[in-house]
């Protein structure tokens, strides 16, 4: 049994567990009774029978999950400062893990809010009757369908949250894998959730198959590591790694295999191929979660394995070269593929591949071992900051698409034509999100990119011959890390093409259909808040506040 202190440390997760239990129980509460045999006494069972009016409301699961996520979100936020504690030898609550769960819960909360519009629950939906017209029947069936699966969806969403958060807190490789699987399996189902659409089921199946292969690879790698070290605790692994004489094949192959598994999670090339299909097939809020929270989860895993375990005290890490090459391939591949994407969701998927590349480049810079602890921390701050604010503008962009999706459109670039005329507020927000993704000042996307590039350049500072004043000899001798920064800059320039193309069609093309969009009050407000925060965290005190927070988290890692 957990002690009181431990419970306090796990409040956000408690809230989610409570949410899950309530989401299972509450919609089933009814007036069923059990008659004691041979008597007339009836004992109320509450489960089953005719459901009470309050508990039969189809909107109830969404409310439960929103409340649970909000509670978890705020407790995570307040836990960032000064959270610490160890539970059961496998969970370690720290500022860092709280920061990450803050990000996860934030993203999932937004997805839960958006889903109330994407998959609306309708009170009093009735079964179709004989005299109803065909289209009417279809609509009624769809409404009933949506009502039926409310519980399923939000249950899965909460499981994703629980898995991710536990994963961030894991201090043991095995436990981390279990948590990742909890989150991933729920996510696979969420991708395939709209199974009546062919594309959804296909996307989910593909994502599941490729994901399972990746997981299997990772678990195989983990077992090799266990064979080598006899322990899966991160601290023990780090100690074994540091004490290793030469390179042990078990350890090296194990780490390499895990790299493949986590590469899939962060959608690094060439393990990213299922991601665009999955994003395009999933509903927009879910795709947004995959692009932000799920990616952040992959990066946390990479931090654990690459930086905590296998980073030598000094000198280049074994994986420096691999991650650097992966990073460059990933960002270039992502940007190039996005260039001709005609489907906005696919485009955003490729853009998130490119962003993974940027962050991998930052990670690789740490692996070069040239930086001191301060610059390393600077780069980590940049990456975590980027993961945090991605929730604002990447997920924000997906939410805008989600709103379009409610009228069945978001799969073609044409669906965004003339959005500025149909809905200036939405188009304006989308414009901000796109600029932030491209990294245009003064938006927060610029700040994070600047910090990453600044960190990489700082790390490479001091290398390169300056005996001659010419550029060429300097360029020949500078550490390869420097070129990672150049790669990011060039790729950012390339990415402007497709981000701005989307803006272009929003503002300068005639809309195909002039009717205004759905009102969706809460979703609109959410999008507006995200747009404002995108600006707010990019400049002035807002940026300072968030950076301070991230620094606290990173220094606890």
């Amino acid at each position, binding site marked *: 049994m957990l002690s009181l202190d431990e419970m306090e440390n796990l409040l956000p997760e408690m809230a989610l567990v409570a949410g899950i239990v309530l989401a299972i129980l509450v919609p089933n509460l009814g007036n069923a009774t059990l008659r004691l045999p041979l008597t007339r006494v009836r004992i109320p069972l509450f489960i089953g029978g005719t459901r009470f009016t309050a508990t039969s409301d189809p909107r109830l699961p969404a409310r439960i999950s929103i409340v649970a996520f909000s509670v978890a979100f705020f407790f995570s936020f307040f836990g960032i400062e000064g959270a610490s504690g160890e539970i059961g030898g496998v969970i370690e609550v720290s500022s860092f893990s709280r920061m990450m769960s803050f990000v996860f819960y934030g993203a999932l909360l937004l997805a839960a809010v958006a889903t109330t519009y994407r998959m609306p629950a309708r009170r009093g939906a009735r079964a179709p009757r004989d005299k109803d017209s065909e289209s009417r029947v279809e609509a009624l069936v769809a409404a009933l369908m949506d009502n039926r699966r409310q519980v399923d969806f939000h249950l899965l969403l909460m499981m994703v949250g629980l898995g991710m958060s536990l994963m961030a807190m894991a201090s043991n490789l095995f436990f981390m894998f279990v948590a990742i699987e909890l989150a991933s399996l729920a996510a696979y189902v969420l991708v395939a959730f709209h199974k009546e659409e062919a594309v959804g089921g296909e996307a989910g*199946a*593909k994502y599941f*198959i*490729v994901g399972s*292969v*990746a997981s299997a*690879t990772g678990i195989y790698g983990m077992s090799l590591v266990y064979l080598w070290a006899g322990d899966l605790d991160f601290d023990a692994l780090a100690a074994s790694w540091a004490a290793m004489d030469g*390179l042990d094949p078990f350890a*090296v*192959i194990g780490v*390499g*295999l895990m*790299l*493949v598994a986590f*590469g*899939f999670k962060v959608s690094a*090339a*060439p*393990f990213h*191929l*299922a991601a*665009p*299909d999955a994003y395009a097939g999933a509903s927009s809020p879910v795709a947004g979660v995959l692009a932000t929270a799920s990616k952040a989860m992959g990066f946390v895993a990479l931090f654990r394995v690459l930086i905590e375990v296998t980073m030598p005290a000094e000198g280049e890490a*074994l994986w420096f*070269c*691999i991650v650097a*090459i992966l990073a460059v391939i990933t960002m270039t*591949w992502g940007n*190039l*593929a*996005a*260039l*001709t*994407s005609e489907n906005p969701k696919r485009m955003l998927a490729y853009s998130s591949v490119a962003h993974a590349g940027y962050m991998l480049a930052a990670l690789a810079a740490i692996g070069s071992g040239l930086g001191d602890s301060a610059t390393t921390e600077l780069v980590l701050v940049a990456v975590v900051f980027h993961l945090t604010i991605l929730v604002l503008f990447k997920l924000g962009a997906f939410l805008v698409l989600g709103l379009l999706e409610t009228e069945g459109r978001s799969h073609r670039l044409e669906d965004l034509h003339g959005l500025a005329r149909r809905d*200036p507020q939405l188009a*304006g927000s989308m414009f901000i999100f796109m600029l932030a993704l491209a990294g245009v000042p*003064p938006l927060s996307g610029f*700040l994070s990119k*600047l*910090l990453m590039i*600044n960190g990489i*350049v*700082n790390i490479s*500072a*001091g290398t*390169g011959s*300056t005996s001659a004043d010419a550029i060429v000899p300097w360029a020949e001798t500078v550490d390869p890390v420097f070129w990672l920064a150049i790669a990011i800059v060039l790729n950012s320039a*390339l990415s402007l*093409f497709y981000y701005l193309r989307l803006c272009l069609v929003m503002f300068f093309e005639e809309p195909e259909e002039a009717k205004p969009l759905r009102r969706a009050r809460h979703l609109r407000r959410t999008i507006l808040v995200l747009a404002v925060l995108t600006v707010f965290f990019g*400049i*002035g005190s807002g*940026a300072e506040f968030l950076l301070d927070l991230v620094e606290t988290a990173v220094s606890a890692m």
Partner: protein
Amino acid sequence: MGEHKQEWDRLLYIVPFLAIVPYLYSTGASSTDYWWLIIAAPLVFFATIAIAGQIWNGDETWVNRLKEGGILGLGALSVSLSAAVWLIYDYLEHHGHIETGDPFSWLTFDVLTYNGEGWSVASTGFSGIGFGIYLDAVSIMLLFVATFLCFLICWFAIGYMTTDSINDNSNHRFFAEFVLFSMGMFGMVLADNFLWLFIFWEIMGLCSYLLIGFYYWKPSAAYAAKKAFLTTRVGDVFLMIGLLMLYDIYGSLDFAVVFDDPSTGVGGALVDAGQLQTALLMLFIGAVGKSAQFPLHVWLPDAMEGPTPVSALIHAATMVNAGLYLVARMVPFVDVGHHGVAGMEELGLIVAWIGGITAFMAAAIAFVQNDIKKVLAYSTMSQLAYIFTGLGAALWLFNNGKHHAGALVFGGALFHLFNHAMAKGMLFMASGSVIHEVHHAHDHLSHDGDGSDHDHGSHHDFDPQDMRNMGGLASKLPITATAMMFGSMSIIGIPLIGGFWSKEIIVGKTWYAYFHGADALLGPALLILATAGMTGFYMSRMWFMTFAGEPKNELVDHVHEATPWIKTPLVLLSVITALGGFGLALFGMVDWLSGEYDHLALHKATFLDQVIYELEHAFLPEDMQLRYVGWTTIALSFILGPIMAARVYGGALKEGEQATGLVHWLTSLSGKFGSQNVDELANSQLAEALQQRLYFDDLYEGILARTIVPFANFAAWFDANVVDGVIKQIESNSVLGSVQIRRVTTGSARDYILMAAVGALSIFALIWGVSA
């Protein structure tokens, strides 16, 4: 145009804006914590108006209630004005000793520096992009001029712009650019750093370009905009070079750092006078471009293609003062009494000569202009040149240790800036009023009864700005005529009115500098003395041609003052122009501006003593030489110029026409002198040369056609074929690559796993390679 309704209820919309600063004041906040409102308000509303206009163009509320954004712009400028007034009040209250607070900084980051052996993270040095404010009497005065006139002219523009159907649905563009310009001006005045000054300077340049070209479909407007932008650009390039040189010398562009001790540069090295002088001359060339001085003056007359409020604000009252402000900021460098660098006399002399030449030349060209706005444009040029001459004399005096005299003429020159900005802003608005009403009278006549839409083609043969179509308007436009009269008097320097107080000091002290060793200043001193008389002539000529005498066109009978938006600022500024000069002179404005006094107040025991002291000072200075100079100036400008003008262009109003009391005496007086035939003079070669603006435009065009244009053609070819070619190649290659790379995404999970396997194997190959 229909009847002009009273539209005062529109002003209710700006009440919430006006309430912001009083609210902040009531909370006990300090004005120095809220200076950013001055800049932020227009910046925010620039975006708001531009976007809202795109969305709501043609919407009933937007057009009639919000005046296509004009009311929003007015609201934003009222925030700026009230915040500025608050700041100025605090500044005066504390006698200039107020803390301006920490500069706002956007982000701070490490910078790599090259230390001779390698690159490393700089421990100090550039730590971020900060913006703070620098307050002294000069910037306080300019801040007031800028915020006050921006507000009033925006008010005027609401009446001027929204009643003309040619502007329909593009006024939001006007107002958005207008407030963006205001932001640039406020920022430039407040900036505590030459770099920010330059940035805002360029923002103003951009807005000037956009607003001159407001009627971009007219070739003449498009040409004028381009000309203004390119001409000032010449100066800006030099300005940038000058700033880089300053940075090289001082290692910083912060006023606080540079002005702290201009005689020692970065690392405590002594500053070389020659180097510094070159840098300052570069800055001065920038100022020459911005303030339209010889030889970069050619853009200003053409800039009158812009709407009249733009001429009033940008090309008369605010932006053209930026150059003067920059020169005024040079004083700490040359003031040898306060750490200045000795041996830079040439700087002052060059500034004064440029000023003298421009003053004379512009006044001469103004003699023959028939376009009412062109006359004012040349007059602006000429008056700015006065100020430059005064500043030049001040720089010379400072550099020769004559601190007191230098401070006096420095203060006088800046006081003239104030007087001129107020008077000229108003004159342009008054001319706008004339043009607006003549134009509408013309429309009224030519479209009477047919009710058809405007046919803009019909305006080609009629120019509402040509003074030869006017005359006798004094009785039709009483408020405008009065405003124009006071404005002209201030510019001419009629004793006791407005500009008199400052012009006397400039002329007098320039001569003083000549008498005390600056032999080279004789030229500018003579030129500006002559210009004083010429100013009297051309300003009077403009007034008489417009308002006095027989109407020269039948449509004058249909002119009437109608739009209430236009009248209010005219009345307000008339009062300021008429009384402001004397009033502020009494309160020691000149000495306050030059930093001799730290507050504005009466410095004699009683009001009467002060009045007598000032009058004595102005008319009977103790120095006999200066007394003669002063009297000559007065005689030339007050007597000779106006009387000559009246003899040539004067004339009484028609029988039965009656002008208002304030200007009645002037029309009847001019009738006494009568008209004279001046055809001979007008046909002379000199007049022709003046008509052609002394052939400067032709000269420049000729030079450009031989030098820049071939190079530009080459650059265009290079751009189209090489630069664009490369970009297009990159783009098409990227697209090709994109198509190729997306082929890998087959959609089959089997292939995905295959790729992942390939990736995994590559990883192992790499690991093997690294560890082997």
